[in-house]
């Protein structure tokens, strides 16, 4: 799965997510990616989220919208992402990763999986990571 979130100079946010799904999946199986609030969500009032991971788990907790809800309640993108991923792990034993940007331009890339490839650009500064701690 791949995805992107962004905020532009007008303060508008957007998200995009695309996937080939699970290896050797059943014919017709559709995971979280195409489902609004699961594979992604964007609202100028709060921010934008794109997800990756175990699709059925992400759908059960509507992970993208859950993280938006946390930001609506005042959490930073990092806090909201950690809370969302923790909830998914404890409630449905699901793992995944998210990228988040809020309406102030704060962002994060968090994952409960072993790794997630990500990159970000802000103030012309490029950052990239794969493993925890990068």
């Amino acid at each position: 799965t791949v995805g992107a979130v962004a905020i532009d100079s007008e303060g508008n946010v957007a998200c995009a997510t695309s996937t080939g799904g699970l290896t050797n999946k059943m014919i017709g199986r559709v995971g979280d990616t195409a489902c609004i609030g699961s594979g992604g969500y964007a609202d100028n009032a709060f921010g934008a989220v794109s997800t990756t991971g175990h699709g059925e788990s992400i759908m059960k907790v509507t992970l993208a919208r859950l993280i938006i809800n946390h930001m609506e309640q005042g959490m930073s993108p990092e806090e909201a992402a950690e809370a969302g991923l923790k909830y998914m792990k404890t409630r449905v034993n699901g793992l995944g990763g998210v990228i988040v940007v809020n309406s102030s331009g704060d962002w994060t890339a968090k994952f409960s999986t072993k790794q997630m490839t990500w990159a970000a650009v802000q103030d012309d500064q490029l950052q990239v990571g794969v493993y925890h701690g990068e």
Partner: protein
Amino acid sequence: MKPVIVVHGGAGTIVKEYEEGYRTGVKRAALKGYDCLRQKGAALTAVEEAVVVLENDPHFNAGYGSVLNEEGDVEMDAIIMDGRNLMSGAVSAVRCIANPITLARLVMEKTDHMLLTCKGASLFAKAQGIPEIPNEKLITERSRERWKTNLHPGSNPVVSQIGLG
């Protein structure tokens, strides 16, 4: 507002041999989207352009490089959402196109619907002038090998993906 873009390339298996390719791929995608933002482009266009870069990169499980279903075929899903007005478009189980994210944006902008699937998505793509390509063109040798390995008796692709994306 200072523009920001963040991209991900999934949380699946990292093959050490290809690690630099993953890093280069997400860098290219982020820079493509940021270039759009720096030129006063919309966030919506920036995320689409970034994802197109990743869909075209065989390292990632989307577009060219997608994993295969149980029949050895590609079925892809995508979604895009605009934070200005909560407009969204998505496609699922779509085949024979290079960039499902662009089709998702067309669903958002050209229909009254949120999600088109399977044959309907293909017919819509054709009506919108999106070139049809043979699904084989989306399949990498690595995807085919993984699919074959998972067909072996005793293999369990679900178990082997625990802890991954």
